[in-house]
């Protein structure tokens, strides 16, 4: 014994304490890991000691090692030992270690419950405090449930030190154990008015956190908070409350109106910037929510902007940053008031702090006007030159392009200027946005006719300059602009000053270092150039010159023929042969220029990305039906990259001389069809019919249109479709003309003859999209540029939409609501992570509360749906809008008190996809099991997520005879896969008694539990019900055989699933897929879904039109996802499931159900 004690104290003397450990680690910089592992060994030894001080010391060192990234979960039990030490010193160490390392997965954590409870009720406030602090970090649902009550009583502790900690920890308890919220809330509310400011602040803190997630439920507290706001002097509390109001105002506009005054007072009076800033923020939120309602808030905006200006002008970078951040919020709703501070924001562009410059850039977007655009961009360009980091420079670049191109180049008054800006931007080395510049160049050159000459000259010098070629290594690098340059020079070669020079530039050997897709464009456009040079030379009668050019081509093209890129190679060899042929002809003195340039005759017009989609399908035309069985696979190539779009475009017109009579057309049509079948690029690249219509005058446009539609159909010479197309085209043409005229007249009126570039040849059909674009070039920008954009949005006129790409402005307006929502969603994460699992865990008493929560969430979901809907297809807009409106009204009208009911109502359709209006025919889930003259058995099989691998079979026994049935016993022959749960001690062969008797005419239900091994296949069990039928005449032993059918659906349990979780599930990629299709279904989609929900235990996740996603979960946790689509007469069900067998069986069952419909 003595020795042991000696040993103990000697050990103790040489134990390292935390400081020694730290020092040791610092002294072992070279072999830190080795040293630490040595220390851990020592710590393990120390933890084996009985002395609690030694253990505490060891645990303290472990806490340090944990910070360095070492896992100390192995010492969890020792940590608990130290936590339970009686001395505060040790206890504190233990709780600290626990708070750093314990989490829900720590299994020994359940051992702490009683210890913590003891500490909570300890007479020493610091023991209690330390326990509360520790618990706040590692509270689990179990701990929360068990300790909620103890903590609640602590909320009224005499010591404010304990009270404030108890109040604060309640938030964590609510998160883990939501059921506690309702009971604890009254007390929490009380604490808002606690005499101690610390406790009050804690209560505000907790309620603000709660309200942030679910503002609606806390609207009723608004008056109380309002009182607090006007009375409290604690800035920390004020900030929290004001932030909370910011979240509440969107829900209750009346609140916002009330808030404005006290907030403005605070803004005027406070000296604390943090408080001022939050006040301004909330005022902005109020103003946004009121933006339509109240006319007289310009003073408030002015005040906000003015205060923000003070922040931005401040020398403190933080204030500057926040000021700009808040400013951008105002910009969205009140751009005018921000615009007056343009000077300041431009100043911020010069700031040394990149984050501030970026914020200022965001604001610039809303600052530009026609007047100042050039000035602003000039400024940005100087920044581009100065910027060091590529990320900031790239950001600048995209911003410049964004600003200039916004609202369809609304603010650009001089396109020559814009082109030169773009050309200047190409000097940026190492940018990732070469393709952006290229796209802009193309866009402008194509859409603004008047600029082409200038653009071409700029582009040819670009092609000539070497610096771009040098950077060809980087993908998406600046060399991308060569793509645009080459194309523009080729396509508009008639504007070139020195075509020969440009041609040579494009044929330089260095070009072969460019990426393949750019080379391909080079090759194609070299030919265009060549064609125009040839024409010039021939017209000038320089036969030799023409031959020299041909020779140049023949000499240089082979370098492309050798390219590794297939596209380049193919085009090059094709063209090389062509040129060689021309050479032969030239040798014979045959004039060729005419024919060569015919290859590229015709002009291109910009086509809206959605143009193809907008071409309406003529009546009676089913695009999906095969007319002839498919032989060629030309469809598969539909998805050509857009990039090559433009070159392909002009291939076709080459076969179309400008004059053609009907007869010839007919002949050609045949030929063309042949050709089109072999032209893989056909469908995508064809511009929409009326587009082409505009610039190809006369009869010629008709065949073009015919092709457009007839090819996708692959009708070999069907006059019918041609007719359709012709008619359709005629109609469109007419429409177009009328509209154009109307539009033009209007425009002209507005412009009052100011238009300079009314220079377009005639007022005929030529004047459509391009005409407008040219107008843009003139200094007088028509004010009606926007109105005409709106015209295009008109849902009744899909054609207008073809003209202009509205993507950018739209994208902005679309993004905002979605993003906002996403934020809200992610912030929900604590319990949202995996809903199905959470469901599984929940025990019965929890359910009620959980439902309550879900309701809230569902409401949000629903809202989200509504939001999502709005920017969707235009066709159905009217209908949907109406729906939305009514829905919106519904949810708004409800006073805060009736939330529950609203939740209930909102929940219904989403959750179980139950019909919204349509009543369903009543159905029973009980199916007939067996019957005879005595008894009828119907049964229903139910799974439950609570019990793994168990299903309950509920059998309704109905006595049909006039005897009393008693002594009923159910015996089932177990299979390998399914066994009936029998009372303890009974053998497999024993039957299970039915716990009741049945008098004549009475029915009752008995439940039997079966354990299932594998749920992936359906199965049948044979069984017998034996009973004694007793009547006046005596008793007889009877029996009834039955077959119990366990379908796969019966293993599914209706489980709600949220669309995000659902999407995650689908993305996870662990699910296998399969599908079925059932024809001849007349049932409404609504009822159909209801049937699936009812019979197969699915729940609807989301439903859009005649398409719905559904979810269910097997008792063994297989996820089953369905996508149900309803066609005209058929229903297709695509399924994904973690088990393929289960899925295929399920789909079979579903098919059977649907077939009955």
């Amino acid at each position, binding site marked *: 014994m003595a020795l042991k004690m000696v040993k103990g104290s000697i050990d103790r003397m040489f134990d390292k304490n935390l400081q020694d450990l730290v020092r040791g680690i610092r002294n072992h910089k070279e072999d830190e890991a080795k040293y630490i592992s040595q220390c851990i060994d020592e710590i393990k030894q120390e933890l084996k000691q009985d002395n609690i001080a030694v253990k505490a010391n060891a645990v303290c060192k472990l806490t*340090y090692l944990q910070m360095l990234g070492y896992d100390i979960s192995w010492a969890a039990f020792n940590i608990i030992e130290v936590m339970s030490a009686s001395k505060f010193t040790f206890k504190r160490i233990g709780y600290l270690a626990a708070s750093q390392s314990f989490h829900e997965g720590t299994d020994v954590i359940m051992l702490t419950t009683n210890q913590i409870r003891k500490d909570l009720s300890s007479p020493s406030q610091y023991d209690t405090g330390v326990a509360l602090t520790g618990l706040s970090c590692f509270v689990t649902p179990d701990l929360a449930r068990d300790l909620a009550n103890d903590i609640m009583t602590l909320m009224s502790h005499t010591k404010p030190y304990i009270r404030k900690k108890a109040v604060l920890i309640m938030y964590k308890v609510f998160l883990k154990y939501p059921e506690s919220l309702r009971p604890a809330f009254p007390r929490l509310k009380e604490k808002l008015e606690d005499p101690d400011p610390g406790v009050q602040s804690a209560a505000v803190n907790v309620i603000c956190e709660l309200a942030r997630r679910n503002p609606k439920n806390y609207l009723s507290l608004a008056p109380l908070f309002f009182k607090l706001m006007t009375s409290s002097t604690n800035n920390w509390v004020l900030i929290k409350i004001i932030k909370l109001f910011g979240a509440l105002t969107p829900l209750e506009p009346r609140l916002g109106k009330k808030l404005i005054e006290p907030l403005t007072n605070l803004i005027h009076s406070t000296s604390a910037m*943090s408080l001022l800033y939050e006040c301004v923020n909330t005022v902005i939120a109020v103003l946004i929510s009121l933006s339509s309602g109240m006319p007289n808030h310009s003073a408030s905006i002015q005040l906000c902007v003015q205060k923000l200006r003070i922040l931005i002008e401040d020398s403190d970078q933080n204030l500057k940053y926040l000021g700009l951040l808040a400013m951008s919020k105002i910009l969205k709703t009140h751009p005018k008031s921000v615009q007056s501070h343009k000077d300041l924001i431009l100043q911020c562009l010069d700031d040394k702090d990149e984050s501030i410059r970026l914020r200022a850039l965001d604001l610039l977007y809303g600052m530009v006007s026609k007047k100042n655009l050039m000035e602003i961009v000039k400024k940005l360009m100087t920044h581009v030159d100065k910027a060091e980091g590529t990320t900031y420079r790239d950001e600048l670049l995209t911003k410049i392009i964004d600003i200039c191109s916004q609202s369809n180049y609304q603010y650009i008054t001089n396109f020559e200027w814009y082109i030169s800006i773009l050309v200047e931007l190409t000097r940026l080395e190492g940018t990732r946005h070469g393709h952006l510049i290229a796209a802009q160049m193309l866009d402008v050159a194509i859409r603004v006719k008047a600029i082409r000459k200038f653009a071409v000259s700029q582009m040819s010098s670009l092609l000539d300059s070497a610096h771009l070629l040098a950077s060809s290594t980087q993908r998406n690098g600046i060399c991308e602009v060569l793509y645009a340059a080459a194309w523009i020079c080729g396509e508009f070669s008639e504007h070139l000053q020195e075509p020969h020079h440009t041609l040579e530039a494009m044929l330089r050997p260095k070009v072969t270092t460019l990426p393949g897709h750019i080379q391909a464009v080079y090759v194609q456009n070299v030919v265009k150039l060549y064609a125009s040079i040839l024409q010039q030379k021939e017209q000038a009668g320089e036969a030799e010159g023409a031959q020299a050019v041909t020779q140049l081509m023949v000499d240089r093209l082979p370098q492309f023929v050798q390219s590794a890129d297939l596209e380049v190679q193919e085009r090059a060899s094709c063209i090389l042969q062509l040129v060689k042929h021309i050479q032969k002809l030239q040798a014979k003195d045959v004039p060729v220029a005419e024919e060569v340039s015919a290859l590229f005759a015709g002009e291109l017009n910009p086509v809206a990305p959605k143009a193809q989609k907008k071409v309406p399908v003529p009546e009676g035309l089913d695009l999906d039906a095969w007319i002839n069985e498919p032989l060629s696979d030309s469809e598969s190539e539909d998805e050509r990259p857009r990039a090559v779009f433009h070159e392909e475009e002009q291939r076709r017109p080459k076969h179309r001389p400008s004059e053609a009579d009907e007869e010839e057309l007919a002949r050609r049509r045949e030929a063309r069809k042949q050709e089109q079948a072999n032209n893989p690029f056909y469908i995508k690249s064809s511009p929409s019919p009326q587009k082409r219509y505009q610039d190809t005058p006369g009869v010629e446009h008709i065949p073009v249109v015919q092709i457009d539609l007839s090819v996708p159909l692959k009708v070999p010479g069907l006059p019918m479709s041609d007719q359709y197309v012709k008619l359709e085209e005629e109609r469109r043409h007419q429409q177009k003309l009328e509209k154009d005229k109307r539009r033009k007249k209007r425009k002209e009126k507005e412009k009052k003859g100011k238009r300079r570039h009314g220079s377009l040849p005639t007022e005929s059909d030529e004047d459509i999209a391009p005409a407008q674009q040219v107008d843009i070039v003139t200094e007088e920008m028509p004010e009606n540029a926007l109105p005409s954009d709106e015209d295009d949005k008109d849902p009744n006129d899909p054609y207008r939409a073809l003209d202009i790409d509205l993507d950018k402005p739209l994208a902005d307006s679309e993004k905002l609501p979605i993003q906002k929502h996403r*934020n809200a969603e992610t912030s929900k994460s604590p319990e949202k992570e995996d809903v199905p699992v959470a469901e599984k865990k929940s025990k019965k008493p929890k359910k009620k509360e959980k439902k309550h929560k879900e309701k809230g969430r569902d409401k949000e979901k629903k809202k989200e749906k509504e939001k999502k809907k709005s920017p969707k297809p235009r066709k159905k807009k009217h209908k949907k809008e109406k729906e939305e409106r009514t829905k919106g009204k519904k949810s708004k009208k409800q006073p805060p008190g009736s939330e529950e009911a609203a939740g209930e109502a909102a929940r219904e359709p989403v959750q179980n996809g139950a019909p919204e209006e349509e009543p369903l025919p009543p159905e029973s889930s009980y199916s007939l099991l067996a019957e005879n003259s005595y008894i009828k058995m119907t049964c229903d099989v139910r799974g439950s997520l609570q019990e793994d691998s168990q299903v309950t079979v509920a059998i309704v026994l109905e006595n049909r005879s006039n005897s009393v049935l008693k002594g009923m016993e159910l015996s089932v022959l177990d299979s390998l896969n399914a066994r009936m749960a029998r009372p303890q001690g009974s053998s497999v062969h024993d039957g299970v008694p039915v716990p009741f008797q049945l008098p004549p005419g009475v029915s009752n239900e008995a439940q039997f539990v079966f354990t299932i091994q594998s749920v992936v296949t359906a199965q049948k069990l044979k069984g017998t019900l034996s009973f004694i039928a007793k009547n006046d005449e005596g008793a007889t032993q009877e029996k009834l055989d039955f077959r119990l059918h366990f379908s796969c659906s019966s293993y599914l349990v209706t489980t709600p699933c949220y669309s995000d979780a659902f999407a995650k599930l689908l993305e996870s990629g662990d699910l296998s897929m399969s599908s079925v299709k059932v024809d001849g279904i007349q049932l409404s989609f609504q009822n159909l879904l209801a049937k699936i929900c009812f019979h197969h235990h699915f729940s609807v996740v989301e439903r859009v039109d005649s398409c719905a996603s559904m979810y269910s979960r097997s008792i063994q946790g297989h996820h089953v996802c369905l996508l149900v689509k309803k066609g005209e007469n058929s229903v297709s069900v695509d399924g994904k499931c973690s088990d393929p067998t289960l899925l295929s069986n399920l789909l079979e069952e579903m098919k059977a159900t649907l077939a009955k419909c």
Partner: protein
Amino acid sequence: MIQAILVFNNHGKPRLVRFYQRFPEEIQQQIVRETFHLVLKRDDNICNFLEGGSLIGGSDYKLIYRHYATLYFVFCVDSSESELGILDLIQVHLPVVFFTAPKVFVETLDKCFENVCELDLIFHMDKVHYILQEVVMGGMVLETNMNEIVAQIEAQNRLEKSEGGLSAAPARAVSAVKNINLPEIPRNINIGDLNIKVPNLSQFV
């Protein structure tokens, strides 16, 4: 909510890591590293807000930091916290911000360690945690009144002293002796020897 409080030095060595949301140790280290690289790039005279790193949270989260001598104090907070409030909480040097609440965190450390420097933090990580616990609890700000905070910390320190502290007197004496006289190597050998011998001894007992 405050999601994490990180303190590390100019070289990215963690000095205090306090997460209010569970992350496995490796991830914690990764977050510290990522955060370090984010703030390291920034000059001292630019703003102290950073749109969050990829590991914690997402767009709702911000990093609010202060560079203080050799140390970075980084708070990762969501949008429910006031940026300037948190910045004040860490400590505000700029007189422009007239926030009436006291400059909490670093100043408290200042008071408790007299003149806080990195070494204090290194050797007394536990104490720093105890101070922090009086300011932030479970991710929420518990107290902003500096006098109150200091009073509570002092009371707890007194309590600890009355219990004799973590290391009993003899151990402390030896520790002092070790620190002064014995060079690194003999101490290690001593421990090694003892560890080998002791089991033999106990067998005899």
